[in-house]
């Protein structure tokens, strides 16, 4: 599937143009994105650690899971919106960036891990709600989730350091390195 026309349309949109010319828009959107993603990471980490029995299994899993879910989803919503906006600013560059696609793929994997947990593993939650270490499948979901969300943040930071340099050298072009730089 060739996404190029869609990516170019996003970058040529009026909204994208406005964000590029506005002095502060990108800085504010970027800061909101960091705030939102660390809230996603932190709230999920609390649930993941609870699945692993860290620091203990005293609290009701169902209750803590229910309490944090809306904060996680609220923050994820803000991450997604600010993420789409940041993508639109330089869509063509991000579209070619390996770290960007690794980040997107990792988010999908984290989503699948969550889906399997919610639809299958969490069904038995009443039997390990508190006082016992959760079953192997639940612990595995927790551990996987930590690894995947750390990876999302790693790739996210990597985008910022690679987006300007991810290009392939055009073929059949002679470079004259002895010429003075323009």
């Amino acid at each position, binding site marked *: 599937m060739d996404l190029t026309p869609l990516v170019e349309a996003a970058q040529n949109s009026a909204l994208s143009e406005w964000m590029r010319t506005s002095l502060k828009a990108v800085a504010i959107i*970027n800061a909101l994105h960091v705030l939102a993603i*660390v*809230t996603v*990471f932190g709230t999920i980490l609390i649930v993941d650690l609870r699945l692993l029995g860290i620091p203990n299994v005293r609290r009701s899993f169902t209750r803590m899971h229910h309490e944090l879910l809306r904060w996680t989803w609220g923050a994820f919503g803000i991450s997604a919106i600010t993420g789409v906006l940041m993508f639109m600013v330089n869509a063509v560059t991000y579209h070619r960036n390996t770290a960007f696609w690794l980040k997107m793929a990792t988010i999908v994997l984290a989503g699948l891990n969550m889906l399997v947990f919610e639809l299958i593993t969490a069904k038995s939650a009443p039997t390990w709600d508190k006082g016992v270490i959760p079953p192997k499948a639940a612990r595995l979901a927790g551990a996987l989730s930590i690894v995947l969300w750390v990876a999302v943040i790693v790739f996210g*930071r990597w985008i*910022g350091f690679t987006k300007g340099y991810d290009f392939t050298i055009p073929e059949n072009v002679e470079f004259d390195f002895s010429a003075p730089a323009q």
Partner: protein
Amino acid sequence: MHDFAEWLGSTPLSVAIQSRLWLTPTLQTIHILMIGVVFVSMLSVALRVLGQVRTEEPLAEVWHRFAPWFWTALGVMAGTGLILTIGEPVREVSALSFWIKMTLIVIGIASALYFGRTVAAAAAVSSVYSGRARVVAVATILLWVAIMFLGRWIAYDVEIWESWHLA
């Protein structure tokens, strides 16, 4: 201060940091992961005061659950932040965002220390918190949100502060 930053930037330690191109993004990533731990630890305690989470637990217990994570992650942030600053001292001292951030961190640490010392007494009084405690909880959340924004804005200091930028 600018001269000091210029000198620091030319020291062998700074040059060693600058020459390892993988080091800055790695430290920044650790710094971001740790602010997640710091922020959500603080947020859990603040939301407990606001009656949003863990209402079945006393406030002191919620604080003791999260305090070790808060302080440990903050310690890691101090370490990674210090190395990042030594690696790019001129960029940091020229940024107004950096100085406001440092000021707010001092306030954040002082208020967390004070809260930690008085939480047992506070928890004994009540499990439902007054208007004043709620205002402090919201102010604390906003303080750490501001710290995060300013941290990100070191990279956008001219855009955000325009002529207030210190270079």
